[in-house]
């Protein structure tokens, strides 16, 4: 029996726009995943510590403040520091395409822009996690 995919959905930084994160959390729950929702105003330290304790397969980050570059980079750094390299990182929010390319080359598996169908997100995560688990 394969265990359910566990996803941490987190809002790093100071912006209060959590609608997107909640839509994603509900959609992934409905796709059969176990979603741990941590709420607003999380530091990268809080997020990665939660990911470690919850032993999640995926960390999903949502940022609408414009501070995505330093926040995502700090999360990548901490994930590596804590030995959680096997965790799939995904992001969402209002993120310019240059930054998307940069972050995807630095360790974020994929960044999903506004208007992404949630089914596409769930499918991408399922494929990515299955691959990681086989490699592990």
């Amino acid at each position, binding site marked *: *029996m394969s*265990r*359910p995919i566990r996803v941490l959905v987190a809002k790093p930084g100071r912006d209060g726009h959590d609608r997107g994160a909640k839509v994603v*959390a*509900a959609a*992934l*729950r*409905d*796709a*059969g*995943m*176990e*979603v*741990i*929702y*941590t*709420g607003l105003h*999380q*530091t990268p*330290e*809080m997020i990665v*510590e*939660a990911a*470690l*304790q*919850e*032993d999640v397969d995926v960390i999903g980050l949502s940022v609408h403040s414009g501070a995505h570059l330093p926040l995502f980079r700090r999360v990548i750094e901490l994930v590596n520091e*804590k*030995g*959680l390299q096997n965790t799939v990182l995904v992001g969402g929010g209002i993120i310019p395409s240059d930054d998307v390319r940069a972050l995807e080359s630095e360790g974020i598996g994929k960044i999903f822009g506004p208007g992404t169908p949630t089914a596409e997100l769930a499918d991408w995560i399922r494929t990515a996690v299955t691959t990681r688990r086989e490699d592990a």
Partner: protein
Amino acid sequence: MGTPGHDSDLLQPLLDGDRRALARSLTLVESRGPGFRNLLRGIAPRLGRAHRVGVTGAPGVGKSSLVAALVATARNNGMSIAVLAVDPTSPFTGGALLGDRVRMTDHVGDEGVFVRSMASRGALGGLSTATGDALDVLDAAGFDLILTETVGAGQVDVEVAHESETTLVLFAPGAGDAIQAMKSGLMEVADLWVVNKADDVRAEKVRADLVGSLSLHEPPDDLEERVVLTSAKDGSGVGDLLEKLCARRAELESSGARGDLARGRIRRRLTAAARDLVSERLLGSAADSLIDAVVTGERSVHDAAEDILRTDDGGRS
């Protein structure tokens, strides 16, 4: 500390307090993954240290908030504390939204706190099937206090009391006549009754009603003592509650009741584990010959059931 590569390497780092090993051990026992029995065998000699406290009550009475307040208070008193927060799995999709962490995001970098969310994964009664094993893992990791927070519980969701040494049942003002509704289920399993949201003016009335209702069947002498007013919001009463938890732990220890509780808990889990093993046998083709025997009228269902237990190979021969 290096990251353990395989699940078989989890035992020693878990016992040494490695948090990643603890997290992965919880996943292993929760998913019944390869080697989970070995891990549980390995930690068996190390159990019995933690005080296992269950926190239950109807949805919205403030379980998560009170647990968060208890974590902060326990830390101030130098106790290490783990939280196992159970939320419901959807019976339709198998998915779950685990939201208890929202109220427990402090304490980053504090090695004395560990919070794990757990989906109920189809189990009834307010917990998950693997809760008992997960509590053992947390116990072996060396925490002083383990709080198990149930899903928002209904009248007969008393499973938490079987897994706990001390059970807190929470109430809050504005929850209608929850006291009446819970009279014959959860009410009976409480060691301490907690009226949360004491910052609400109606809380005192809830407390008085609760004491009145409990006095019908509980010994009156220490009843007032066993009903505690707390406010997770302003922290009042939480220190008092923690003191009562510690006093109860000491009393269980000195009276020998703690050993009896452990034996009762083990008896139930043994029953469940044995039932799981029998079910496993019956899932496969092993039971076919027994089914044939019942179909042809050679054996009764009850005879066949006894045959399953009597043979080592589950009736395959």
